[in-house]
């Protein structure tokens, strides 16, 4: 364990940029913490925290200068690895009626992600299984994913909608990072405990000239790790998968559908949701056309389009599809839950539908019925 000063994070950002990375990190914009390019410590949301509740998100000023004193915002790193819009191919008509296909996007930049939460690292591991773990790999995802340098920031203050502890994905990141930081901040001290998770991480850490952590500093970091799980606002029942697998026909879905606006916010903020659609975007002359992939959502009626009409016509069926896929059938497909407990779907649901509450309700009824 080593210790670096808060200012060393500025050095880290500049050093990675100097190594050719496009450095992306948290920054404050439009009343939220979002992920965007950062050039130094000044771009980080220093001294800002956030409040999370169902359908509720507010930034608040902290009484300290914490760099990573917020939980998570509406963005996830998904937007860099699996972008909301991506041109897959550009096709050009040939004189003989045939066509030529070219790649749609230039080679992606090498990126460094600063301030990743444990749940977000877990989410990337989940999407790796989707896009890299099947018989066919997604070429674009693989290219964007392969050289990412990942700097984790262990969660010190999980929020009101967080439940990563019950999903066993956090709040302390266990793997997948190159470098992980534990921020210790109180009235008397402010430092970061740094640990390397890879050779590349170790090399970068060395260049920050850290000093070995004292016993007291180590103990302070351990206190952060130990106390964080207690601050979690929510909990997912451990048997969510079994509960949902038994509840395909359950009155709860109709009840939830009365509240659900089918707006797809939950799927857009979810760091693991991977549905997409491809649109044909031709030019006016009909000589060139593009195949453009965009995020889609199982809450859209067109998602289950069939010639006779949408297969999942009712909102109840669409909500059931989302929650059952996320927490139950995902296990069958990818040998992991599709949920990492980040709580975004709860926070950003305009009517505050709570995935943990839904499972709990179905579970309670199922107990009574069976």
């Amino acid at each position, binding site marked *: 364990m080593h210790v670096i000063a808060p200012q060393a994070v500025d050095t880290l950002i500049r050093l990675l940029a100097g190594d050719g990375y496009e450095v992306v990190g948290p920054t404050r914009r439009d009343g939220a913490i979002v992920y965007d390019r950062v050039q130094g410590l000044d771009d980080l949301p220093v001294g800002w925290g956030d409040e999370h509740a169902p359908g509720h998100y507010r930034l608040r000023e902290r009484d300290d200068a914490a760099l990573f004193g917020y939980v998570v915002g509406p963005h996830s790193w998904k937007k860099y690895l699996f972008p909301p819009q991506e041109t897959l191919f550009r096709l050009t008509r040939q004189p003989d009626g045939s066509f030529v296909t070219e790649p749609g996007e230039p080679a992606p930049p090498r990126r460094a992600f600063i301030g990743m939460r444990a749940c977000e690292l877990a989410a990337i591991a989940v999407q790796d299984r989707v896009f890299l773990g099947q018989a066919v790999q997604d070429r674009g995802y693989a290219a964007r994913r392969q050289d990412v340098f990942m700097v984790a920031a262990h969660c010190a203050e999980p929020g009101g909608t967080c439940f990563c502890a019950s999903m066993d994905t956090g709040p302390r990141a266990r793997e997948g990072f190159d470098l992980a930081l534990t921020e210790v901040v109180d009235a008397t001290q402010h430092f970061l405990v740094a640990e390397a998770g890879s050779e590349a991480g170790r090399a970068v850490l060395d260049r920050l000239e850290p000093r070995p952590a004292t016993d007291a500093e180590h103990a302070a970091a351990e206190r952060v790790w130990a106390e964080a799980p207690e601050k979690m606002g929510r909990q997912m029942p451990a048997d969510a998968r079994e509960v949902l697998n038994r509840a395909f026909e359950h009155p709860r879905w109709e009840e939830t559908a009365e509240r659900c606006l089918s707006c797809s916010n939950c799927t857009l903020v979810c760091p693991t949701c991977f549905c997409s659609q491809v649109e044909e975007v031709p030019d006016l002359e009909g000589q060139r056309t593009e195949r453009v992939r965009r995020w889609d959502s199982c809450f859209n009626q067109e998602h289950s389009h069939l*010639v006779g009409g949408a297969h999942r016509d009712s909102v109840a069926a669409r909500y059931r599809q989302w929650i059952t896929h996320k927490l139950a059938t995902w296990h069958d497909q990818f040998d992991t839950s599709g949920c990492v407990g980040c709580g975004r779907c709860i926070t950003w649901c305009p009517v505050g539908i709570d995935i943990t509450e839904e499972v709990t309700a179905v579970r309670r009824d199922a107990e009574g019925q069976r």
Partner: protein
Amino acid sequence: MKELLAILEQQPFFEDFDPKHLRLLAACAAERSYESGARLMRDHEPTETFWLIREGQVALEGRVREGNVPFMTLGPGDILGWSWLLPPYRASYDARATTDLHTLRFDAGVLRERMEADPALGYTLMKHFAALIVQRLQAARLQALDIYSHGGSEHGH
């Protein structure tokens, strides 16, 4: 008689009948052929008969203003006629041979008496005819749903 019994034993409809009951059924049956166009049942007329079709095709027809419209055809192995089972023992549609037809024709009047006297036989036959009627009902429902017209598929499923 022995020949008829051998025929019955091979029919899916009579597959799990007690041999004793099969012998009884064979005793009520006779081979009977019809020429194409022959009418086996006429809507609303009394019927004391049912048929096992061995060769050829029978069309069940309903009468509409334009004439007779076939709503179902029966072929080899199919049973024609259940109106003999329940009062008023009248046919509810026309049945017409659309090809030359070879059948086993059962005397249902006699059979009904046997069923009354032997509840085990009665139950077996009722059970098999109930299954047949359910099958026909399901078929009629499927037909009513017009399954091929609802959008359907672009390539087959």
